[in-house]
């Protein structure tokens, strides 16, 4: 009996201490981790696809709840007018989720630019989706309500050679971005008005 109590007590105390320590550390590092993510993953992608903006899209960001998930949107100002939003969507790739940052012009609902943020694709094959700007630039100027497909599946997007699954995932992410955009457009329009004041 004594042994049993000792086991329970030791395990409980250890778990409680470990849980407390970790949640404390998590709170302490949360702000810094978000800054790092913006700097290394989302920042470069946003800067690349929102070339020529007059504001800092990373500073002008806001979050809206979409059902259960909270989505982050980055605002781009062209010619002094906040008319572009950038946000991330995901598609299932060969080695896991592929994150795609999509920037949309809200005046004519077309894609301003797209860029891969996070991925775990094969180096040299699928990973070129991120490294080769020619691939993602195919999305530029296309209307967002389209369903994007690679040419093999009867679509317009030329797949990366040797990486059809990756290319399909990027198309799926872009299509998903369209869905998110259509769903949230009223809220986004409201928010953008604040930035135009």
């Amino acid at each position: 009996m004594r042994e049993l109590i000792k086991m329970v007590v030791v395990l409980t105390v250890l778990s409680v201490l470990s849980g407390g320590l970790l949640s404390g550390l998590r709170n302490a590092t949360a702000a810094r981790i978000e800054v790092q993510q913006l700097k290394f993953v989302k920042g470069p992608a946003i800067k690349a696809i929102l070339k020529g903006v007059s504001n800092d899209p990373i500073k002008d960001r806001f979050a809206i709840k979409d059902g259960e998930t909270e989505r982050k949107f980055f605002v781009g100002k062209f010619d002094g007018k906040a008319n572009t939003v950038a946000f991330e969507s995901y598609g299932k790739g060969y080695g896991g989720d592929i994150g795609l940052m999509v920037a949309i012009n809200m005046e004519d609902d077309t894609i301003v630019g797209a860029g891969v943020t996070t991925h775990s694709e094969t180096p040299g094959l699928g990973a070129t989706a991120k490294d080769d700007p020619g691939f993602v630039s195919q999305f530029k100027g296309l209307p967002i309500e389209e369903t994007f497909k690679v040419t093999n599946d009867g679509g317009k997007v030329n797949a990366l050679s040797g990486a059809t699954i990756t290319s399909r995932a990027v198309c799926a992410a872009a299509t998903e971005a369209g869905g998110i955009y259509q769903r949230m457009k009223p809220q986004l329009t409201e928010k953008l008005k604040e930035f135009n004041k």
Partner: protein
Amino acid sequence: MAKTLTQEFTKGLWEDIAPFRLVLGLCPVLGVTTTMENGIGMGLATTFVLVFSNILVASLRNIIPSKVRIACFIIIIATFVVITELLMQAFAYTLFLKLGVFIPLIVVNCIVLGRAEAFASKNSITLSIADGLGIGIGFTLSLAALGSLRELLGANNLTIWTTPTSIIGVQEVFGPHFQPFTFMVQAPGAFVCLGLMLCLMNLLGSK
């Protein structure tokens, strides 16, 4: 029987070098060593976890009941792994992006649990620190060696550390006309490289 501190430290560097002598902890060994930098980073993260879990296991060795010791060890190890993961995200984000899922997998790395069970739970704190450091540095060196070989042949580069602004290391070691042997940076290449290195270690050890 009583071994000195230096003996406990140095055994991990050659005699018991984990991936090559004991062929343990192969998941990160094969998975992350696509570049030398990844190898070093993974090795250092494992060393950190190993040293701190050894310290804690050794200091709690008389309190932990033997029937639930494995569960206790796993809690301790998992705690340090999550600490490593959070700190790496906060301070070395680029490295975290490359190592990805392999950081949480340190929890189930048999080297860490193996040292806790076989060494730290039976020895004093100072000896356990020496043991953890030795095994950890040995692990780091093995990963760095395997990573540099694979990166050199597979990508023609040798990266030691990447900072946001620059890369410390050598690019295009064999000159710009060398056609990289891409096979080496993919998973099957890892097995081939590991096999060659094991062969070399056995050759050196048999003398």
